[in-house]
């Protein structure tokens, strides 16, 4: 279907179902129940799933296929956000002007940075991209204040021109009248599902971007990118120049990042320089690795996983823990809560760091590899003879 083989079509359909059904699938617990805090089906979080999913898919096209580890992708995220907010300020709140501009500016920016950075590889490439991103971040905070509004962050003021703003047009981001932050709620029994316009806007874009990624992975161009990762020297000897391919991958992933940044501003009409800081670049690296580098579904899973646990873990507090372990004897209960306490709430980053280390050490293929190993464990007992030494690439 649509130029994809059977397996990819199945994967695409799974992603489409997950993306479109998220408001229901992520809300498995009734609103009144004690488990309701594990629900993730509210708009703000779901939007982040989709946006960071796009960001990670794009990053994976560079890192997963070519093996170039960029530590500066947050710069493109920031550029995308600024472009969209500027379009709000100059034209009007319709995201149709901003998003294409975000992609284009981020792409141009990536072309510039990539052209310079890709002259080196390995750790030098990482440090070059890091240096460029930190430079953009520092400039956004200081000299470029007229464009970025410095520490305050860029936002729309009433005195802004907004030349296209109609008389009865919505006063927040919208897509031809489809207001992003409005949503309809449906109550069914004990459950309440929120269907948010902004989320569905992101979800549709996520699906399109995922489809594009599949096509890139399966294309001859994708094969070239893999060749860069597996043996750059041999590729050169066969008479191919790897640099244009790597640069194209860098620009594409920069455009993905710009689109993600633009969508952030489309959900919430703000753009701040802290989005460009290198910790934000580190976050997308974490997502990609955690999910599974070089796999199609991995980055989306990783982004969802990190954003979900960031939200849920940081909400759990000691009282909730006491509630869970109340079946234990008093002393033991306090002890267990005391042990878990540093890892929850504000300590969520500690859990993330430990998790990340464990994944890099024991499961370099990320969640996807973990799933495959589990599957192998279950199936290998039945037909041991069939899958001897059949190692398929993690998909």
């Amino acid at each position, binding site marked *: 279907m649509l130029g994809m083989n059977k397996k990819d079509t199945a994967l695409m359909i799974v992603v489409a179902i997950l993306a479109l059904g998220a408001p229901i699938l992520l809300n498995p617990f009734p609103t009144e129940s004690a488990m309701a805090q594990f629900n993730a089906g509210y708009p703000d979080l779901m939007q982040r799933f989709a946006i960071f999913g796009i960001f990670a898919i794009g990053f994976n096209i560079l890192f997963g296929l070519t*093996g170039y*580890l960029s530590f500066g992708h947050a710069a493109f995220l920031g550029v995308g956000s600024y472009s969209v907010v500027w379009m709000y300020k100059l034209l009007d709140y319709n995201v149709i002007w901003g998003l294409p501009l975000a992609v284009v500016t981020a792409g141009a920016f990536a072309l510039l940075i990539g052209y*310079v950075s890709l*002259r*080196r*590889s*390995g*750790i*030098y490439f*990482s*440090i*070059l991209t*890091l*240096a*460029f991103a*930190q*430079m953009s971040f*520092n*400039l956004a*905070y*200081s*000299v*470029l204040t007229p464009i970025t509004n410095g520490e305050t962050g860029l936002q729309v003021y009433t005195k802004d021109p907004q030349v296209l703003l109609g008389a009865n047009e919505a006063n927040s981001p919208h897509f031809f009248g489809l207001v992003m932050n409005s949503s309809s709620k449906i109550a069914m029994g004990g459950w309440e599902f929120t269907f948010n316009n902004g989320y569905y806007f992101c979800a549709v874009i996520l699906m399109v971007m995922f489809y594009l990624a599949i096509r890139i992975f399966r294309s001859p161009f994708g094969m070239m990118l893999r060749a860069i990762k597996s043996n750059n020297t041999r590729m050169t000897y066969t008479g191919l120049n790897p640099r244009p391919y790597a640069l194209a991958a860098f620009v594409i992933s920069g455009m993905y990042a710009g689109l993600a940044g633009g969508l952030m501003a489309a959900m919430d009409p703000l753009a701040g320089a802290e989005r460009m800081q*290198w*910790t934000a670049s*580190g976050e997308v*690296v974490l997502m990609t*690795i955690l999910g599974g580098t070089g796999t199609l579904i991995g980055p989306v899973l990783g982004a969802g996983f990190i954003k979900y646990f960031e939200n849920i873990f940081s909400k759990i507090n000691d009282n909730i823990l006491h509630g869970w372990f109340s079946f234990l004897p008093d002393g033991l209960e306090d002890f267990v809560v005391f042990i878990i306490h*540093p890892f929850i709430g504000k*300590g969520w*980053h*500690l859990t*993330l*760091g*430990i998790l*990340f*280390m464990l994944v*890099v*050490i024991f499961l*370099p293929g990320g969640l996807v590899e973990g799933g495959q190993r589990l599957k192998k464990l279950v199936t290998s007992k039945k037909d041991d003879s069939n899958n001897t030494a059949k190692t398929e690439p993690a998909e």
Partner: protein
Amino acid sequence: MDAIILQILNGLDKGSAYALIALGLTLIFGTLGVVNFAHGALFMIGAFCAVTLSKILTISFETIDPTQKDFLGNPLVVKTPYVEAWFGPEFGAGLIDWAVPLSILFSIPIMIGIGFIMERGLIKHFYKREHADQILVTFGLAIVLQEVVKYFFGANPIPTGAPDALTGAFDFGTLLGFDPNTVIYPYWRLVYFFFAAAVIGGVFAFLQFTTFGMVVRAGMADRETVGLLGINIDRRFTIMFGIAAAVAGLAGVMYAPINSPNYHMGMDFLVLSFVVVVVGGMGSLPGAVAAGFLLGVLESFASMNEVKSLLPGIDQIIIYLVAIIILLTRPRGLMGRKGVMEE
């Protein structure tokens, strides 16, 4: 003229910190071939060693002094640190006052211990993996260390003062024949510079003049041959990792009075230190030190008002700009060896 001297002096203390961290990073890279993203966290832990010692020294007990009243008219509660009670008020107060320099002794064993545990427990399993994996796992470790410190010490910076005797400023200008108060420089920064110079000198002397150092240098040049000669080079490299951790820790200890330690100070320094290492040349110890001071001084020159009015924003990006130019024109760095990580 006086402005230029002032900027050079200002650059030196930051340059010293860069040089010390970059020295440790280069030691680790040169010996073990590992890119250590957790090195900034070691710097931060060093600074928190100083905080911990000054907290330990000020642990106090409370006594009620009936002769004095507080503002509510109740008997005044006087806090007396244990050290003052044990060693007499004067010596005790002196100990508390000199907590930061004392932490040097306190931090060395701690930092070497942390270095050993890190190397044996984690890094050793990553020798054969790609640089990307090394970067990622040490990046994860940096997050963990940072969060552990945040858990115990909180997220706010903790002011940690220098000894009273060294808090003033030194009028450098009168020494050189300028008007008084044109070139003044805090004593502690001067101390920091000389301390850094001493540590750097110590490390170089250790590598140059001891048998141990000779073996380590031989191992850096050709690890395999040294191993074939029947020398346990791995153990020596582990010790070097401990020393590198101690150097970063010492840089942190002495930096505490300059900049109140907070849990993410390591990350801020780490990025810059990597740039320093790259500019100096991967694997070149003199290069790391020279580039550290060079970039420190360049940074402070770029923050002069005259330069800023000419090129706005240059003070924010000068270091990165230099790194980009160096990487593109001379990828091995200022003093890097030919062919080492040059691709």
